[in-house]
Every structure is written in structure tokens, then in C-alpha cells.
């Protein structure tokens, strides 16, 4: 199934910004991150269709997964 992956900040370096990629059905956010060599511990926030999500959440066809490193001040 197709998943659109969006990466931000340090995660973009040497990877991608936005890309629609093919994944097996039932793939989790964590598995997508791992496929891009992003460690769970470095993920500050994962959004599925722009809503806060757990890394273990299973994705559905056409979902957009956005991964951010840890942020938090301003």
C-alpha cells in the first residue's frame, strides 16, 4: 500500500522531505521509521494524517506519516 512519508529537521538530512512509498499492509509507524534508519528514541513526534499517533499504530493505505525529532521550546 502507498504511504506518504514526510520528514522534518535533522531527519531530512541524507533522506527525503516528502515521498510516497510502497509498504506492506499493516505496516506500523515505527516500521516505516526503521525502514528509513530512524531510531525510535530520536522521534519526538509522529503524526498520522496530521494527528498525534503512537509509533505502534498500524497505518492504512493512503495515510500520511510525519516524523519529527524531539522539539519543544520557543
Amino acid at each position, binding site marked *: 500500500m502507498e504511504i506518504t512519508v514526510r520528514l*522534518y529537521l535533522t531527519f531530512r538530512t541524507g533522506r527525503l522531505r516528502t515521498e510516497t512509498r510502497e509498504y506492506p499492509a499493516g505496516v506500523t509507524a515505527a516500521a516505516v521509521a526503521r525502514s528509513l534508519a530512524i531510531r525510535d528514541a530520536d522521534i519526538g513526534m509522529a503524526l498520522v494524517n496530521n494527528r498525534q499517533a503512537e509509533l505502534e499504530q498500524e497505518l492504512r493505505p493512503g495515510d500520511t506519516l510525519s516524523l519529527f525529532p524531539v522539539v519543544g521550546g520557543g
Partner: protein
Amino acid sequence: MAADYDLKVWRVNVRTQTLTKEPVPASWERLGGRGLLARILLDEIEPTCEPLGPKNKLVFAPGLLVGHMLSASDRLSVGAKSPLSGGFRESNSGGSTGLHMTSMGIKALILEDRPSDAAFWTLYLSLREVRWKRADDIVGMGVYEAAPRLLAEYGNKVAISLLGPGGENQLGTAGIQNLDKERVPGRINARGGLGAVMGSKRLKAIVFDDEGGQKPPIKDPEAFKKAQKAYTQAVLAHPVSHTYRDYGTAANVLVCDALGALPTRNFSSGTFEQAESVSGEHLRDLLLKRGGESNTSHACMAGCTIRCSNIFGGDDGKTIVSPLEYETIGLLGPNLGIADLDVIGRMNWEINDIGLDTIDVGAALGVACDAGLMKWGDSERAMELIGEIRRNTPVGRILGMGATMAGKVLGIERVPATKGLAMSAYDPRAIKGTGVTFATSTQGGDHTSGLTLRVKIDHRDPKGQVAASRTAQINIAGYDTLGACIMSGFGYATSPNAVRDLLNARYGWNMGDDALQVLGKETIRLEREFNRRAGFTRAHDRMPEWMTREALPPYDVVFDVPQDEMDDIFSDLD
């Protein structure tokens, strides 16, 4: 050496131009920074006083841990009754002033009364002497021009807190600018109109000369060293430190855009179609490409290892402004429909030079757009309006008084503000915990009172937001009392005994594991009591009504955290 360190409260009467040095009252000893300001305001200021009148006092207080080059922990708190909210106000900044005050042994500097004539003064404070000098030669001057003149006169080693023309004109958005470690006046106690209070005291600048001063004594140096090491390692190891070193706080632009919380066109949308072009990612690429004076990373305080600040240079490599921060980008960029970082940087420089808060000015300009004074995205017009503020014209004064005043005069209901203070760059309908902070904090629409962005929670769901905001508000009130930066919180959070161990080693106290929360709760309790005596009730802890009614695109969210839940947020502290 240590025996000579003489910690005192310095009290200055600006009318009689006298200084007295007083012993620190016992009830003030265990507080610093924001917590100490709350105690002093409650002890000394008539809560119903006129904020710009002779009864209000302007207080400077470094945090409890200032003076030891602890990373991100040398901050200065300044406070008074706020001319914007009419309640308690504390605003903290980096730079060198806090460090100088601590080495001079100043627990708190209290400025009281009001001169009877209009002349402005420079107050020079050192361990040897106090000097008052008419400031006629720098009155009306922006801070970037005035600071070098003061440095030429008083020497390159001093710290300075100074006003731009906005503070002299007692505008509600006026702050107090401090020098960073390169002696550039860009570290501002920005919010709540403290510059206006200093203007009412007719002080253009305060010069702190710490010659002959010394580091504050440490009761148990071995234990302090150990705790400092653990804390520093935690800061260095924390991934957030790296994110902010590389991208600065501008890292938040696309985070907030993705959450639908990026203030766009006066808070009428939570996402901006050109967000990438004002993002931290783009900012970093630009600075790396431009080189010259540009720097993606810069320390605003001498001992900081996070270095979240930056130097934003133009195409020619020359500095446009330093730093360029998320809040400023949000309020002067997407909030006005402006998508050009160079333009935002130049507006930032102007507003800094006038000595104003970019957040409240940006929000006022957003309101001005809604009122037809400016078209969305028209940066030339925005610069003209900022020029009106500098020249103190009637239109300039309306905008310079902040978003709340601008909304009233211009007839705009959609004003993003609570307790008279414009909201920082997080639309509270899409980050509801921060909305709870905006509504319930003692100080109004200020994210530094308790940002919940990092909490793992569905930010658009009203559930759990009161608890998230409460935890954030208590922790940050604790950090503000230590003199620790919002960025240091990550290091402290992953080095759980650091706060306790540092305080106990520094002062010989016996605080427990909950040291941070004890300080935070006491601070909030004192602030709430001040506000209560100033006439605040639960009716003041309300979100603007339009935000509960107007759905925010793209996720069509309103602010819907139940009021009764918010009302009880600190009932255990009252």
C-alpha cells in the same frame, strides 16, 4: 574570597536618586528570579496601583543558580505590575545582566517611585559607586545605536539593560534590552510592558559594572561539581539540544504547521501555504549558504552549551538580526501572510531597535491587517506601520500598545490575546494544553508560562489538557526561579536529581526530590495571590469568546476545554 561575598537587596529611589543596600529578608532567601519577584511584588507593591505610576516598582532578580556558568542557567528575571494585564508580570532573558548582578552580590534590584520631571537618566551601578547621568544624548535613540555609545563611555566589560524609544514612550509592548555575550542588545525582557514601567521611572539605561565582584560562594563545591557534571552531560546528550543548536527555535515552524497551529493571517488559519519558506529547515540552508557573519548556532549566555540562538545574515553575509526566533517568525511571518525570512528579519531588527516585544507587535499588526490598515503579505506597509510606532504617531501608539488595545480601537473582535497579552505563535485551538496555559496562567498569552507542545497527547482533543498545562506551568515557574532557560529543562528533566543537588550544594539546603515543583508551586501561589488582590477572578481565566466559536482551518477546531476543569487547575494552591 567567599567570606567577602555580600549578598544584598539594592533599593533605588529614582526620584531622590538614592541607593540603599539592605540585608536580604529571611523569607526572600530561598527564592530567586521569578519566584523572588512574586514574593517582592506581593510584599511591597500595592496590587491595585497604577502600573505606570509612582507606586509600581520595577524589580530585577537573577535566578537561584545564576553565576556558575551552568549551561543555559544564567537568566535574569525582571518584574512589575504589568501595564498590559494589570497583574503580575515576570519576563526573563539571557544575556549578561544576570551574571553581572550575581557577581556584584545583588539578590534583587528594586527601582521605586517616579521622578517629577520628564528627563531620562542613565544609572551606573558598581561596587564602588553609583552615578546618575542625564541621558539626553541617547534619548530617542534605538538600542543598536545607544548600546555602543554606553559601552564607549562605561567600558566594554559592563552589562546594560536599556530602553528603545518604545520604552521611553511607555508603550505597552515595550521591553528591556540586554547585551548578549558579543555585547549586542538583542536579549529582551520582552513581554507585558516592563519597558514602559522602566520608562515611567525615566531610566533610559542601567549599567552594571561587576569589576571587583566575584562568583557566589558554593557551600559544598565537590557536590556542586558532581551535580553540574551530571546536568551538563544530560544537556549535551539530549537530542533536543542538537535540534535547537542546528535549527534554533525556528525548528517549530513546520511542527506547528503540521499540527494546524501555526498562526496565519491573524489566527484565521493554522496552516500557511508557504510555511516551508519560513521554516527552520530553510533558515538553516540559507545561513549555511550565505556564510559571512551568518551563524546557525550562537550562545546568548556565556556558559551555554545548547546555543539555540543564531545570527541571521543577508545575501551579503552581513547581519540582519540576531537572533531570529520561532515566535517572531510566526507572528511577523505567517500571521501577516509574509513568507520571506529576509523581510521578517528586517522587521525583527526594527522592532528590537525600538525596544519592543515582537510577539505583541506582530499580533497588533495582524489585527491591523484585519482592520484594513495593511494588506496581507504587504511587508512594505508593515515596515511603514513599524515606523509609525517608532515616531510615536497616534496610529503608531495604537499598534505599539499591543494587540488588545489595537483590537479595541480598530473595532476587531478577532484579537488573539488573554489578560491583555497577545498569544505566542501557537494557536490554542490546535494545541489546547497551551491554550489552557494562555487562559489560566497569571500572565496571559505567553507560551513561556507553560508550553505543552512536547507532551505526547492529541493536541486537538480537549481531554487531558488541563493536567498537561498544570505540569508545564509548575515546572517552568520552577525553572524561571532557578534562572534556567526553557531549553535547559530537557537536561534537568533527564538528570532528575540535578535541581535538588545543585541547590543543596550551592546553598547548603536540604531540598527533596521535588525541589523544582516546590519552587514552581510557591511561585504560582504567590503570583495568584498578587493577582487576586489586584482584582482578578476566574472571569479573567477565559479564552477569547471567538476562539470557542470560530473553527480553525484546516482541522476545524474550536477551543473546547471545559471551563470548570480549567477553573480548578490550581485550586489546591490557593
